[in-house]
Every structure is written in structure tokens, then in C-alpha cells.
């Protein structure tokens, strides 16, 4: 079975040591001094100016250990190496598939990434135009974005449906070390894969539980400013049976 992929975790929580608890989150605007002193390092969405850590984005500032990072409220998806993305096959070319990953550039999935042998003349037997894949960003270069499909939870997605949330909400939906997404999976019994590009794939045993999962995820995506969201979600699940 396809399971929650590890790619989501190491992208967002590589700096999380598991020892330091995050301090409370505060709303910051670009240019605001979030922390001062040489004890702090600038994480994503922040920069160092002298000894101050200054916000570059509008969002929630979070201190995890020494690192100050900002979870932006909005913004486009920018692919990085090892991001898990959900894309749609847009075209088939002689050496692979062109995959729309909801970025200015398409991704390229080489034929070699197919888990089984694919006849060069019948590539649509494996992935046809309009099919959806979960893939990992292998390389980002000016020439293009290369995708890979070897890994746990990656591959062609079959059954269920995909929908989009704001990509900047993806870390919240996954939660600290996957706490939120595990809660959702546990409560609904659905399989969920979240791409860093904001596309979410849901597959469950029946349509009702899939719809409930989608509502839960959209509920989280709306609530950016709420703290203690995991507890709120437990409440939500008891209310929305």
C-alpha cells in the first residue's frame, strides 16, 4: 500500500532536532526583526542582517532551537530537490513523460523511472495523458526539473481523487513530524499523500470517508493563525462524524 512518504519530513523538519520545543508563533511582516543576537540562525523565509534575524516573508515566525524560520501565509510552490510532488502527465515524449507539477516549468519523468518494463511504443499503457503521479524532485537546473519515482509511496496514483490547497499550508497539514497527517489518516482510515506543490491525493474505502478527509484538510488549510491545531482537529473529528 502507498504510505505517507518520508520526503515531506526531511524537507521541512531537517532542522528539527527533537530536543528543542518551538516557542510560540508570532505574525511577522517582511523587514521585521524576529530575533537578535548571534545565538540565532536564519532559516527559511528569514535572513541575517548584522546580528539580527530579519523576516523576508509575511507569515508565522517560529524558533526551533537556534533556527528562526518563517512559515509564509501565501506564496507559490518552488520546487527543491527531494520535494515530493503530485503531478499530472501532460505529454509523452520518446524518452519519458512530461509532468505538470503546478510550477512555471514542467517536470520530466524519464522512462527509466518506470517500476516495470515499458515498451517504448506503448508508453501510455503505464502512464497516459491525464494520469496522476506522485514523484520526487530529483534535480532542479536551468535545463528543467527532473523527477524520480523510486521510493516509498511514489508512483502512479490509482483511485481516489486529487485536489489542491495553498502550497504554503502544506507544512501545517503535515504537522510536526507528521502528527497532523497521521491524525487525519487514523481518524478517517484514508490514504493521503501530500505533495509540496499543494496537491493532495486521497484514497479511502468509500466515498464518504474520502469526502470527510478532504473537508478536514480544507479546514486546516483555512486555519492558518490557529495554534494548537492538532487538538482543534480532534474536536473537529468528533463533531464531524
Amino acid at each position, binding site marked *: 500500500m502507498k504510505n505517507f512518504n518520508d520526503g515531506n519530513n526531511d524537507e521541512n523538519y531537517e532542522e528539527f532536532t527533537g530536543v528543542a520545543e518551538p516557542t510560540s508563533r508570532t505574525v511577522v511582516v517582511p523587514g521585521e526583526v524576529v530575533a537578535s543576537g548571534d545565538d540565532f540562525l536564519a532559516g527559511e523565509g528569514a535572513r541575517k542582517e548584522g546580528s539580527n534575524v530579519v523576516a523576508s516573508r509575511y507569515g508565522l515566525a517560529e524558533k526551533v532551537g537556534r533556527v528562526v524560520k518563517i512559515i509564509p501565509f501565501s506564496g507559490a510552490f518552488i520546487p527543491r530537490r527531494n520535494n515530493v510532488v503530485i503531478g*499530472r502527465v501532460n505529454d509523452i515524449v520518446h524518452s519519458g513523460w512530461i509532468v*505538470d507539477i503546478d510550477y512555471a516549468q514542467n517536470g520530466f519523468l524519464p522512462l527509466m523511472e518506470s517500476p516495470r518494463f515499458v515498451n517504448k511504443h506503448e508508453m501510455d499503457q503505464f502512464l497516459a495523458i491525464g494520469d496522476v503521479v506522485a514523484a520526487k524532485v530529483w534535480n532542479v537546473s536551468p535545463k528543467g526539473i527532473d523527477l524520480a519515482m523510486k521510493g516509498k509511496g511514489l508512483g502512479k496514483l490509482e483511485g*481516489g*481523487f486529487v485536489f489542491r490547497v495553498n502550497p504554503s499550508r502544506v507544512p501545517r497539514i503535515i504537522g510536526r513530524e507528521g502528527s497532523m497527517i497521521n491524525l487525519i489518516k487514523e481518524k478517517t482510515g484514508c490514504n493521503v499523500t501530500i505533495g509540496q506543490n499543494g496537491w493532495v491525493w486521497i484514497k479511502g474505502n468509500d466515498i464518504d470517508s474520502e*469526502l470527510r478527509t*478532504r*473537508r478536514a484538510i480544507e479546514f486546516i488549510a483555512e486555519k492558518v493563525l490557529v495554534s494548537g491545531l492538532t487538538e482543534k482537529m480532534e474536536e473537529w473529528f468528533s463533531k464531524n462524524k
Partner: protein
Amino acid sequence: MSAMNLSNLTKNTLNKMFALGKRFDGRKLLEQREFTVEYDVSYKAEGSARVKLGKTEVVVGVKLGVGEPYPDSLDSGNLMASGDLLPLASPRFESGPPKYNSLELTRLVERAIRESHVIDLKKLVIKEGEKVWTVMIDIYPINDDGALIDAASIAAMAALMQTHFPEIDKDGKIDYDKKTTKKLPLLENTIPLSLTFYKLGDSLVVDPTREEEEAADGKIVWGISHYKGKEHMIHSAQKGMDAHLSTDDITEMMKNLPKLYDDTLKKLKKFLK
């Protein structure tokens, strides 16, 4: 919505869901979203309205001008609708010459209004054969989350009902800064609206969201009103997209159309001034 095209997965699931009578937002298949109407959104227009139907948002402005009548209708005023699908409304829309969908939007809104004869064009004559009023309906989609045509027709009617003539002197010069209390001559109790049925698989839906609209195979846009406050009357119809529609589909639509129209009208009447 983003620019990624609809996937086979979602289309198949929607097909199955519709067969079970379910939708992503929990509505029934023939249930419309709630909408709100705001007036006087444009300072320059003679009448304007903004309609928010779910996340779909349309602004319509009505502008009155003076012009020559068309040679084939010397005794009546002119009516025209224009507009374009602005790139601001959806990542699907590009700027450039109007394409099929944008022409369809303006044309269907105009046709529903024109063919219902709600605007008494004969009363718009200033000097027969020489000078008549021209009613220009400008449609600006602000956000597209499906059912743009339906939302635009609601906005167009709301704006028309708010339209006041500007002041005009003997030479026919218009002073747009001075509005009179004279309203546009509209037929009483006739409010034409367009209602669109979409078909996916064997199911019919109304008021789709963006993703549902993209999944659909066929549609018919109906222009319907309570003509002069009496029976329901269909003024216009246009079939769109590829799928075939059966007699049963049309029968089903005819069964539900009056009720859907009445519901929409009831909601609209709450906002009428």
C-alpha cells in the same frame, strides 16, 4: 484553482460521486450555491452590481449612450453586451483576442435579456430613425469558480434594474455626472436569468464549481423568466460541449428548471432595492 488541468482520477471519481448524488461541497446535484448582490460598485456606470456566487465573482456595469439606431430597427434602441474573461479571474484565462468561452459568456447573457424583451427598446428612442439610447452591458468576471454565465446573468439583471438615465439636453449631449430619477424601462415582473445544466456520465448538475465544470461532458444554457409575472417561459437555449443529450435529459431539465428559477429569483429578490 491552479493551472493544472483536470486529471483522469478526479474525473472518474466525480462521475462515480454524481451517480451516487454526492458532490465535493456536500450539495445535492441540483442545488445551487448561495449568492450575494452588491450595488453601486462602479462610480461611472449608470447601474452596476457585483454578484458573488460561492467563490465565483462577477461585476456588471450598465452604461447608457446615445447613438444611431440600426437600419433594420429604426424605431428601437440598441442593446449590446460585452466583456472578456480577464486573466485575473482564473489561471485558465489569457489576455488577447476574445476566445470561444468569452464570446459565449457575453452572447448568452445578452441573448437571455434580449429575447425576453425585458428592456423595452421601443421606449429608448429619442428621435426616431436618428437618435436612440444604447444600453451597454459590460461583464467583468473577477473570479471564476464555475457557473460564470449564470452568475453574470444575475449580475446583469441586478444592474439593469438599478440603471438610471443620465441627464440629456436638447442637443442630445449627455451629462453623465447628473443622474435623473428616471429608470430604464423594464417590463414589470419579468426577470430573465440563465440557468445551466451540466452533464457528466448519466447525471445532471447545476451550478458547478471549477473542477466540476471542467469534468463535465455536456451542458445546456437556458434563458428563462416568469414572463410578465405569469407562466415560466424559456427565451433562449444553447447546447455546449461534446456529450450527447437524450430526450430523458431534457425532460429531466424541464422538470427542474421552473423550481430552480424560482429559487434563484427568491434569493435575488432579497437583494433588490
